[in-house]
């Protein structure tokens, strides 16, 4: 699994509260990605990073921000959580040589 760990794995929060999900990798991959997975939608790209302090928007970036201050960590922040952000969030890192994505086990977020 290329050492991708996500934290927390489960979180319940209330509407309007800030939430930060953390993704940590141990393989020094340059590219990292955040996806959300919802029934009927598959995986949708939120934001991605192509290096330290280098990030870009994905398909569904509204309401989310990201930061990458170190190669190994990619943070996803919901500044003010809404019920529509209830989802399972997956982080992935890409092997630049093979193109393969390595995924974490997911973070299940419930916004009440």
């Amino acid at each position, binding site marked *: *699994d290329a050492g*991708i760990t996500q934290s927390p794995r489960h979180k319940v929060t209330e509407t309007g509260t800030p939430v930060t999900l953390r993704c940590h990798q141990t393989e020094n991959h340059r*590219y990292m*990605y955040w*996806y959300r997975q919802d029934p*009927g*939608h*598959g*995986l*949708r*790209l939120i934001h*991605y990073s*192509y290096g330290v302090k280098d990030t*870009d928007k*994905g*398909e569904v970036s509204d309401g989310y921000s990201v930061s990458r201050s170190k190669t190994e960590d990619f943070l996803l922040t919901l500044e003010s959580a809404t019920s529509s952000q209830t989802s399972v969030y*997956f982080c*992935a890192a*890409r092997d630049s040589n*093979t*193109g*393969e*994505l*390595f*995924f*974490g*086990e*997911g973070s299940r977020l419930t916004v009440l």
Partner: protein
Amino acid sequence: SQQGEEDPQALSIQEGENATMNCSYKTSINNLQWYRQNSGRGLVHLILIRSNEREKHSGRLRVTLDTSKKSSSLLITASRAADTASYFCATSMNRDDKIIFGKGTRLHILP
């Protein structure tokens, strides 16, 4: 809208039969990948095929790519119960670091 769309959305077959899933996409790609997801787990990479390749094999998996039709297929031969999972295609477009997934095909292998 999403780049890739898998077809069918769900597929049930008897153990030992072959399973075929298709993926169609909208714009030119650099490569196309297939992933498997077991229930409640992260996705696992199966195979990558580049835009200049037409067919690729890995064990019981066979992937084809038709860039003129903007489509790919994943064939799993001699299916097993352990193949029960969701399968996703993911595309990487030219000069773009985004990797976009489709909605997936749920495969159920019947004993």
